[in-house]
């Protein structure tokens, strides 16, 4: 047996000999997993402490969170999503995702490994699954994304009341726009080029011109809330672990 391959030392997405994915592919798969509350990949947040794949196709991922008491519902979603993303990689024969140093580690790790779902993993402590919670925070991501896309338009002189006239296709392409469309599509909301730029994230209904100012105010507020929360999580993580996570980047962070 050879030692597992460390992700960082094995970049490149191409499958290696025998069809086993490279470390780069593993990390790319994990980068599709987001913290549902913060709407950021678990990789860039620094939550992936290690990700390895053995020559015979066993993938093992260790995750870490900013505190021992981070909300277990969000933690469960991240572990389960990471498991699904890694297990779906061609060439992975077995996947193991382990959340370390969390008060609910045992229940979460065991539940995800057994495909038990959230309610069964926390027998007696939870009755519902987490779809509504996820959708609720996805709607927040849509609002925050609306601010990201609209702010440059407002800065270049477009009036708020004129934005309801625009469609997604009218807006110049940008990573923020792509992301907004992806989030809307995930919720089943209109996301095509002809769909209105401003919609109510709960109903999908277009926003009326006289409601545009308030809608944009809410969008800005939601983005501020998400970003401030994310910044606290990053600060706590740094206090808890003095090492960088796999694929972590510190972009957008301010120096104190």
């Amino acid at each position, binding site marked *: 047996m050879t030692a597992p391959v460390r992700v960082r030392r094995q970049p490149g997405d191409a499958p290696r000999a025998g069809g086993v994915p490279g470390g780069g592919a593993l990390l790319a798969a994990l980068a599709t997993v987001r913290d549902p509350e913060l709407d950021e990949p678990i990789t860039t947040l620094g939550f992936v402490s290690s990700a390895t794949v053995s020559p015979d196709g066993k993938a093992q991922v260790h995750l870490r969170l900013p505190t021992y008491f981070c909300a277990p519902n969000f933690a469960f979603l991240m572990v389960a999503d990471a498991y699904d993303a890694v297990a779906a990689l061609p060439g992975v024969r077995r996947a193991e995702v382990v959340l370390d140093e969390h008060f609910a580690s045992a229940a979460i790790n065991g539940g995800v490994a057994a495909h038990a779902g959230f309610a069964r993993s926390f027998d007696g402590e939870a*009755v519902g699954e987490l779809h509504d919670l996820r959708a609720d925070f996805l709607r*927040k991501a849509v609002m925050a994304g609306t601010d990201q896309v609209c702010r440059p338009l407002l800065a270049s002189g477009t009036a*708020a*009341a004129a934005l309801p006239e625009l469609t997604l296709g009218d807006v110049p392409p940008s990573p923020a726009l792509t992301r907004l469309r992806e989030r809307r599509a995930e919720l089943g909301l209109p996301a095509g080029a002809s769909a209105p730029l401003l919609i109510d994230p709960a109903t999908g209904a277009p926003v009326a011109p006289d409601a545009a100012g*308030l809608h944009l*105010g809410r969008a800005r507020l939601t983005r501020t809330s998400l*970003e401030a929360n994310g910044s*606290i999580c990053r600060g706590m993580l740094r206090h808890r672990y003095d090492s960088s996570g796999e694929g972590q980047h510190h972009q957008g962070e301010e120096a104190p």
Partner: protein
Amino acid sequence: MYEKDGEKYFVVDSHMHYWDASPENWVPGAEQYAKGWIECFHAYQSLGPPATHWSLEHFQKYSEDDLMKDVFEDGHVDVAIFQPTDLKEWYTEGFNTTARNAEMGKKHPGKFIYNTNFDPRDGDLGLEELKRNVGEYGCKGVKLYTAEWNNGSRGYKLSDPGAYRFLEAAQELGIKNIHVHKGPTIWPLDKDAFDVSDVDHAATDFPDLNFIVEHVGLPRIEDFCFMATQEPNVYAGLSVVIGGLMFARPKFFAKVMGELLFWVGEDKMTFGSDYGIWEPKWQIEGFVDWDYPSDEFSDFPRVNTATKKKILGLNAAKLYGIEVPAECQLPAEAGTPGAPDDAQLVAGA
């Protein structure tokens, strides 16, 4: 009192603690929770200036002398309000109980206000205890954790009939201020613990009570702001906002303050240091010196000396009926509230 550039600031620390989380107080069998809890708090402290960080050992249990020095002698605070957190399932004598707070506070007359707590699911026994606490300690406020588990119940809503019974009783007993913890939480696992709509209902139905939402509903500032903007008796408790962001993330701090000033307004925001998580000294001195860092924030309400005096003490003094020395009061015309009409919602709107 804090004095800077000839201005005198009366300071009410409306959210602080005197806890014992030392290993001697850990419940056997629950040590990992007791340890995890205090380490989590300690991580929050790391968001303050390095010179104010404590060792974990000191953080677990600070003394009465430490508190008096940090909060009053060095910390500029005039009156401090204890907010209890029992957590008796993890800490044998409780983490930070009404009784422990009062026992210490009574040695320093005039310095402290003792808030208590209740849980509507405790029924008649809970009501009796609330009466006892108010009678014994003269409580004018309570701190509530709606997400807490109790005998198989996974949290409650302030709008539940059982909660209304307690709110009515509290009001009759002379309680004025309901501090609600809507913020970082653990339980209930599957419910939406951050939802603030129950505060909205209770605030409408109890117009003579004030509802101070601590930690401004983090991670859901937006839901909180939207509710607070419609309810005249809902306030923003700034604990965690100043301590957790002002030093570590100045740009996000400016954005959050801007949003709060815009939606909630300077008349409804109260300072709380969250001591022993953070010492009040640097928070108060930093906030008095604070302004928006750049033109990027020009569409938010402005901040002036009157704004800061209100937030640091005058607003809370009003809520708790604390007498403010004449030299610290605002002249009648000073300071215009940060009402939504005063600011443009979005540049170019």
